[in-house]
């Protein structure tokens, strides 16, 4: 295993970069990071969660259908749809990375929306009522009373979801996105006879990163809980 890591460590980390495009684990993290955070999936999830907890019926129904649909089908199917529909919809060829990113954004938005909704539902009803009764509008109450508390409480779940996203990106190699599983496949076809070592090194990359992040999420959760229990 160590000799594989020694020989191909760089390929696992960054793919063929800087000669070729960025690949390897770096690209996995970029894909998961863009897919979940940095302004793509999260705003969509916020809108979905607000629609689901709100009182406008058709919006509520639309958001519910969205969430249940994407929770109910495998990511591979979403990737297939994106691969097939995106070029038709915008009438040009779409690079594999963008296709995978689009699939991950819509897929993760459903799971994130559930997390945000749990955060909103988790607050006592009195918070909204009190905010409204002192004269804030719904939007003002959301912005300055409800969301700051709800979003703080869901930070650990967001980190856990980031772990899930990192793991989920491993399937997009099937449309040719050069992330770390793609690198491993390439290395395996160069090596031919040391498949177990190659794939265990691949597993180790995910293992270390995801375990650290999971423990970080647990630590955050303990801290936030301690903060809530502290007398005001």
């Amino acid at each position: 295993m160590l000799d594989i890591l020694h020989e191909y460590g760089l390929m696992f980390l960054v793919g063929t970069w800087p000669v070729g495009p960025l690949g390897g684990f770096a690209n996995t993290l970029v894909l998961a990071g863009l897919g979940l955070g940095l302004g793509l999936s999260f705003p969509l999830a916020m809108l979905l969660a607000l629609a689901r907890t709100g009182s406008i019926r058709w919006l509520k129904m639309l958001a519910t259908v969205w969430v249940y649909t994407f929770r109910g089908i495998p990511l591979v199917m979403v990737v297939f749809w994106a691969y097939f529909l995106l070029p038709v919809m915008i009438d040009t060829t779409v690079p594999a990375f963008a296709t995978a990113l689009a699939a991950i954004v819509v897929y993760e938005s459903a799971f994130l929306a559930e997390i945000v909704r749990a955060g909103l539902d988790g607050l006592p009803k009195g918070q909204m009522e009190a905010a409204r009764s002192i004269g804030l509008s719904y939007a003002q109450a959301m912005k300055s009373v409800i969301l700051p508390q709800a979003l703080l409480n869901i930070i650990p779940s967001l980190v856990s979801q980031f772990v899930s996203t990192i793991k989920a990106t491993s399937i997009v190699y099937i449309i040719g996105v050069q992330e770390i599983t793609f690198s491993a496949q390439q290395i395996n076809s160069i090596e031919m006879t040391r498949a177990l070592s190659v794939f265990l090194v691949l597993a180790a990359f995910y293992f270390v990163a995801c375990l650290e992040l999971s423990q970080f999420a647990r630590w955050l959760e303990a801290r936030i809980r301690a903060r809530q229990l502290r007398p005001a």
Partner: protein
Amino acid sequence: MDFQLSFLLSADVLPLLFKGMATTVRLFACAWVLGMLVALLLVGLRAVPWRWLDWLVAVFVEYHRNVPTVVQIMVWYFGMPEILPRDIKLWINRGDTEFLFAMIALALNASAFFAEDIRSGMRTVPHTQLEAARSIGLSAFGALWHVILPQALRISVPPLINRALILFKDTSLAMAIGVVEMTYQTKAIENLTFRSMEVFVAATLFYLVASLVLMALGAWFNQRFPPAHKG
């Protein structure tokens, strides 16, 4: 682009679709049963007071929780034949090799989560409950059946159903090693006929309906058996 769902009913396509669905369901069922058996074994092993055994189980669980399922499938399919004894390898290769390795990988993956769900249910029932049940004259089995399980299962079953849903969706990852399940078959029919839209709609509906049934089961259980009140 003309959209014809009737195309799916043609004699060339329908058997392929059914074969894909059947394989997906079979893979799910086999992996669930095997995974549950391994999970019960893991829970049992955790109860043994040997520290190294506890540590070993913890490593097993963390490996399966923190490595992508598709990578676990690849480790089994591409890697494990290198170290398996020759006789076992020959025996595996006689049957449906891809299916078997996918099933093992998915089952072990699920078992790690199942074991944690079962454990978290058991932890919610204090030990004194068993002592109290025995002291009013219930047998060990009676105490388990009437007192412990009704409380523990209320906590364990909802996450177990949710995990079954994830396992069901994860069967699609078996396509990576060439198991002819629904997702693989979808791609194959698409390549054969170029009717992407119809095939994707059919496959999506199949997954969606099955998932909704599992979600409904979870919702029903939550309503019928809500967690006991702490008091």
